[in-house]
């Protein structure tokens, strides 16, 4: 059997924690030299490729939406539970009890999945949100699988070397010499600078 070109990195996820009813879904696949992000509506697929050699940074930002979702699901479950308890009619109790149970199950699954997050992938030309990584635990697992592929494509830097390179890079980006005052840069010194009116 021929080897498959892509290996699944994440399962298909809705574009947000609250997107239970949404049809827009996203997932990630690992290719030979790139990460493939597939966004699907169910009937069409859109592809975005992030080449390992181009990925500059991965950012995970923990969000609070998992708590909000769990609270909403829990409240609805409690409401249905109360109706089931004090509704009187056994049929009403069964219907609302079952619905309450479903919402409670949703809340438990949400809490068990752990903290939610937003994940961003930075290249030289874009900062792209990765919609399929919406849980911290899953994002870290994906990161674990990506790390060796990125190291293979870009090389590996030791911790202190990376820190010093980052300091140098920050100094160059912000225009400040490391540990010193910013050196004034004249527009005329840059041969690639577009023509401009100086203040």
């Amino acid at each position, binding site marked *: 059997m021929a080897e498959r070109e892509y290996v699944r990195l994440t399962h298909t996820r809705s574009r947000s924690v609250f997107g239970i009813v949404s049809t827009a879904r996203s997932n990630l696949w690992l290719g030979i030299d790139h990460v493939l992000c597939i966004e699907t509506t*169910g009937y069409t697929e*859109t592809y975005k490729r992030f080449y390992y050699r181009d990925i*500059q940074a991965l*950012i995970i930002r923990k969000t609070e939406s998992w708590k909000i979702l769990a609270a909403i699901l829990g409240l609805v479950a409690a409401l249905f539970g109360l109706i089931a308890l004090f509704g009187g009619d056994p049929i009403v109790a069964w219907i609302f009890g079952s619905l309450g149970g479903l919402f409670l199950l949703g809340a438990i699954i949400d809490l068990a999945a752990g903290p939610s997050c937003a994940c961003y992938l930075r290249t*030289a030309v874009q900062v792209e949100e990765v919609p399929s990584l919406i849980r911290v635990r899953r994002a870290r697992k994906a990161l674990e699988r990506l790390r060796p592929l990125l190291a293979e494509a870009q090389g590996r830097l030791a911790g202190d070397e990376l820190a010093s390179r*980052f300091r140098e890079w920050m100094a160059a*980006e912000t225009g400040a010499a490391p540990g010193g005052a910013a050196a004034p840069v004249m527009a005329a010194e840059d041969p690639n600078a577009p023509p401009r009116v100086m203040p």
Partner: protein
Amino acid sequence: MNSPLLCPRCKATLTEAEVNRAELTPCHSCGAPLQVEVYPALFRRVTPGRDGEALVVEDEASCFYHPQKKAVVPCDACGRFLCALCDCELHGEHFCPGCLETGKRKGRIKRLENERTLYDSIALALATFPLLIFYFTVVTAPMALFVAFRYWNAPRSIVHRTKIRLVLAIILASLQVGGWAVAIFFLTTRAGSHG
């Protein structure tokens, strides 16, 4: 781009203390818990694009698009000579802008493909969803069969995907068409026997 590394929430420039930590670290500006990993590509300088080199000797090979510029490479798709400006390199292959555009439009260069229609999902949806209101299947079942047969060999998803949806769509739609045929046959024969 090579702009500073920013907090995705407050857009404050991240510092060394917030980068490459094993755990979530609060942003120094907004306090959002962040885990930032940077890789060597961040420090790589972006090389500026090359210009075409002007012809020096008259009989030198020149660019197809710029006759005054020296050819440096042939297009891997059409064989036209290209100068450094027209040479679009794509993972070791060289294309002229025309072939790159055609390859993208016609799906010949798989790496440039950024959208596909999932005809198998469409066929399956046509064969299943209308079952909720059964009368619609008189129209949708033949449509599902048409889509399934018409796009049997069309490329499916870019990642591995079997033909199971198409097979299911054909089976379900065939059953629906068969059901309608039987129903119409009985209705016409009963009407005939009463008449």
